[in-house]
């Protein structure tokens, strides 16, 4: 045994995982196999057609009863007392580092996909059914690539890659999911209840993240128990609605509102009152074909 090391000493870093998030390729090493297993369980495997601008090494180590998270230019080491909080801290670090390359982008809380030679955004208030609609359209053959976050700059949008997180209570609305949700990864919180992680690849879909011009913006309004319908929305009204679901670029870029308005001016802007999903399918098919 080497001087200074004991049987309870620091373990070597024993396992690793590679994750791609947009323009950043991460290599995560850890002496906690459970963390790496958990990581593989919840991260996405989407194909991403963006150039890799940065390779980043992150390590999570258990040392003397605490967890040290380190790596990433300019990031200080963090210390956590449980595996769960260490996992969250590491995930937050990955997100922050990946987003550094998109500091000039407007962040829009939206589901997203492709149609009419460009991107379609599905925007709505909380509980408006964005993820349920996104998964439904995915099951119906539409190319839907995200349910949470879209990054916009100069009219071009790209989806932040992550699994779709579907409320457990929505599973009954989507019979085509079949047994895919049995044993699927999930997260749970007081605010949202149980959320099932849906991987489009496991649904047999090609999951490809890429940058594209925004062609269609749909604002979802719940119409529970009714039929679904669509109507044209004025550009100004759509700007007002979608800005309420958006954040300014973290870089402080000053022309972002002009960029946003120009994007809405050039897109088809539609309000979808979401009742039954079956009638919504035909409406979306007409809108996006």
């Amino acid at each position, binding site marked *: 045994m080497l001087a200074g090391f004991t049987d309870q000493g620091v373990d070597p870093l024993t396992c690793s995982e590679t994750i791609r998030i947009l323009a950043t390729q991460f290599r995560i090493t850890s002496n906690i196999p459970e963390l790496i297993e958990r990581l593989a369980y919840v991260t996405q495997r989407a194909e991403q057609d963006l150039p890799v601008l940065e390779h980043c090494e992150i390590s999570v180590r258990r040392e003397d009863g605490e967890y040290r998270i380190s790596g990433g230019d300019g990031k200080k080491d963090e210390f956590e007392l449980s595996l769960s909080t260490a996992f969250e801290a590491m995930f937050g670090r990955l997100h922050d580092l990946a987003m550094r390359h998109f500091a000039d982008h407007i962040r829009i809380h939206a589901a997203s996909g492709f149609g009419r030679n460009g991107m379609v955004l599905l925007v709505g208030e909380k509980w408006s059914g964005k993820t349920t609609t996104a998964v439904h359209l995915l099951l119906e053959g539409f190319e839907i690539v995200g349910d949470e976050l879209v990054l916009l700059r100069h009219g071009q949008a790209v989806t932040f890659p992550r699994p779709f997180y579907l409320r457990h209570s929505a599973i009954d609305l989507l019979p085509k999911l079949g047994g895919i949700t049995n044993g699927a990864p999930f997260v749970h919180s007081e605010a949202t209840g149980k959320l099932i992680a849906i991987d489009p690849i496991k649904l047999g879909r090609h999951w490809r993240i890429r940058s594209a011009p925004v062609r269609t913006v749909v604002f979802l309004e719940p119409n529970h128990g009714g039929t679904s319908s669509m109507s044209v929305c*004025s*550009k*100004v009204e759509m*700007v*007002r609605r979608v800005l309420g679901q958006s954040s300014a670029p973290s870089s402080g870029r000053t*022309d972002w*509102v*002009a960029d946003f*308005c120009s994007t809405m001016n050039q897109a088809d802007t539609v309000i979808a009152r979401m009742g039954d999903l079956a009638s919504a399918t035909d409406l979306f098919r007409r809108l996006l074909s």
Partner: protein
Amino acid sequence: MTELTDSLPVRVEGLEINVMHDGVVIYQHDHKKIHYLNHTAGLVLELCDGRHKVEELAAIVAETYGLAQSPHDDIITCLQDLRTKELIR
């Protein structure tokens, strides 16, 4: 109202005016505030350059939209609204 009628309203500085197909979106950089106007209010705001009195603004709007009567009172209401929003002084 008399005060507005005789004034030469002028836009405040630092406004970004985004003309949309069906209205105007104003971004007030200093206050990081966004305002939504219809095209007529947007036109009035653009004309508030410190050189036009209300009567002149009303005449331009009437000509632009082919109105038979001067929209004098509507212009006063519009200017009051723009002043409330701190877009003109």
